[in-house]
């Protein structure tokens, strides 16, 4: 089903770009790809299957049936530490807003997937590297609370470099905040799925990322706790290419499945079907 007009408008604006911007080089096979065609192919290289990083609204449009009602988009960042380095934190975020077209690093809301009502949270690496500050934590907390009230499954797509340095400890506390809302959602017997996309590390993987009932990872995504550079500096040697890939994690038993992007929606639908067949914890108690 095609995306509704308003959603299409929010998708990355391919048309407005200069001719050069209409072409992207695949970092894996080097093929030069026409971006509108790439977009049609869910940002997967048709030659080598490389998965490009997706913007949150592009992702949503490939997953939901049509409707998507956003929540929490009025929660906007402050500057609690009054952070300044080469730029002020508000200035950094201004650049991120212009680059990504987003007000923060996560988009949350409700929609349907094959007619299943779901809560959907989608992180976007193009805003501050998908880092989790107060707004990411608060929007996700609102999503888990609302999903718990509606008793609908929650699917969160992660893409994050970890906690946001510019919000200091308040950023770290979002690991606790999201966990708090996840526990209530899950303990009530609701279904929680994460889809770990490239890259997912630090405070996001070490909180809700790995607290889900089912953990799906997108092909070849880099997933880990410590960043690759940090590990290499610590052990003073180069890591093998495969290290911390979705496939590596599958082999080590950390995740449930690795799925290619074009099969993702169908996979999620099957998971939702299984979950709908059971009885919730809260109903059993009643």
């Amino acid at each position, binding site marked *: 089903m095609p995306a509704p007009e308003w959603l299409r408008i929010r998708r990355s604006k391919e048309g407005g770009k200069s001719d050069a911007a209409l072409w992207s080089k695949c970092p894996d096979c080097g093929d030069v790809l026409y971006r509108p065609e790439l977009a049609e192919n869910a940002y997967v290289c048709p030659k080598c299957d490389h998965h490009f990083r997706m913007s949150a609204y592009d992702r949503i449009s490939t997953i939901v049936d049509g409707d998507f009602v956003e929540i929490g988009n009025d929660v906007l960042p402050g500057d609690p530490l009054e952070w300044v380095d080469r730029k002020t934190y508000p200035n950094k975020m201004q650049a991120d807003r212009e680059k990504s077209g987003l007000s923060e690093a996560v988009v949350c809301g409700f929609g349907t997937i094959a007619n299943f009502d779901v809560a959907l949270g989608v992180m976007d690496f193009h805003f501050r590297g998908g880092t989790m500050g107060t707004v990411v934590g608060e929007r996700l907390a609102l999503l888990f609370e609302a999903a718990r009230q509606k008793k609908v499954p929650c699917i969160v797509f992660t893409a994050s470099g970890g906690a946001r340095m510019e919000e200091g400890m308040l950023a770290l506390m979002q690991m*606790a*905040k999201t966990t708090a809302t996840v526990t209530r959602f899950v303990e009530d017997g609701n279904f929680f799925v994460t889809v770990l996309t490239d890259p997912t590390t630090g405070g996001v993987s070490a909180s809700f990322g790995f607290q889900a009932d089912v953990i799906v990872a997108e092909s070849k995504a880099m997933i880990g706790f410590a960043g690759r550079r940090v590990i290499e500096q610590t052990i003073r040697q180069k890591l093998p290419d495969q290290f911390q890939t979705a496939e590596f994690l599958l082999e080590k038993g950390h995740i449930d499945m690795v799925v290619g992007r074009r099969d993702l929606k169908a996979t999620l639908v099957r998971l939702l079907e299984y979950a709908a067949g059971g009885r919730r914890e809260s109903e059993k108690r009643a």
Partner: protein
Amino acid sequence: MNVIVEREKGLLELEKRIAELRTANESQPVDMAPEISALEQKYQEILRDVFGSLTPWEKVNMARHPGRPTSLDYIGRLDRFDELHGDRHFRDDHAVVGGFALLHGRPVVVIGQQRGRDTKENLRRNFGMVTPEGYRKVNRLAKLASHLGLPIVTFVDTKGADPGISSEEHAQSEAIARCLYEFTIARVPIVATIVGEGGSGGALALAIADTVIMLEHSVYSVASPEGCAAILWGDSTKAEEAASRLKLTAQDLERFGIVDEVVPEPLGGAHRDSSGSVTRVLAAIDAALGRLKALGPQKLVEERYRKYRRLGVWQTERREPIETSS
């Protein structure tokens, strides 16, 4: 190089001279008391001068001081301690020590991150950097405490979770995420004390608590200053600058509502009076447990939820509804 240790070198000279004069004074006919007292006064002046007000970076160094009381110094002063070992799967991580204990006669489950004082002990303790096996031990002990209805008392002292190959292979993220989950739902009082350095998610895994206590010169940060400088500026040598921006001191964190209580340290740091410092911290933990005892399990979990649910600073036109029913 620890800037606090460097500064103490000058003071050590003075301490030695005072001690020498004292010994000499006992065996000499001439009374040297005035000289000694003058020197002591000077010593106190220098102490105030050097340690009266510390910058964030100086506090980072204070928190890492090799002489600073570590978790085992606190655990060693409990009425009784019976260590419980291992993650029941793979290994016993010595960067975490835990077990049953009596604190002022009260049975508790105690869990602490343990760094070493010298190279040999640091290798055994992995510099206080906990591996997934260690976090699984923490998780197991927290569940045990919940099961038996015993309060959980934790001591936090780590630069961060272990960033090695084996830790990634053994799912460090999952191990920490499960600790956060367990501490959030534990139906028993939890009191966490940041005794040295609290570094990132590796520290938070032991620090979701009803009462969070910090020593006056402890630090608690989203990332180590070195890590933050590397992440933001690609240069870990800019750690001092990062420390000044991160708002990682006990005083900053009390202001943000992240820390509930700050326990004062003697002038010059907790290691100048280790025994007294340990006594004060244990008394603060005992008092917190006394207060939390009045709350039932339901209320405890509810209050803990509300505390973490509201943390953060953001802008919105709407007054956000905080869910209250559990």
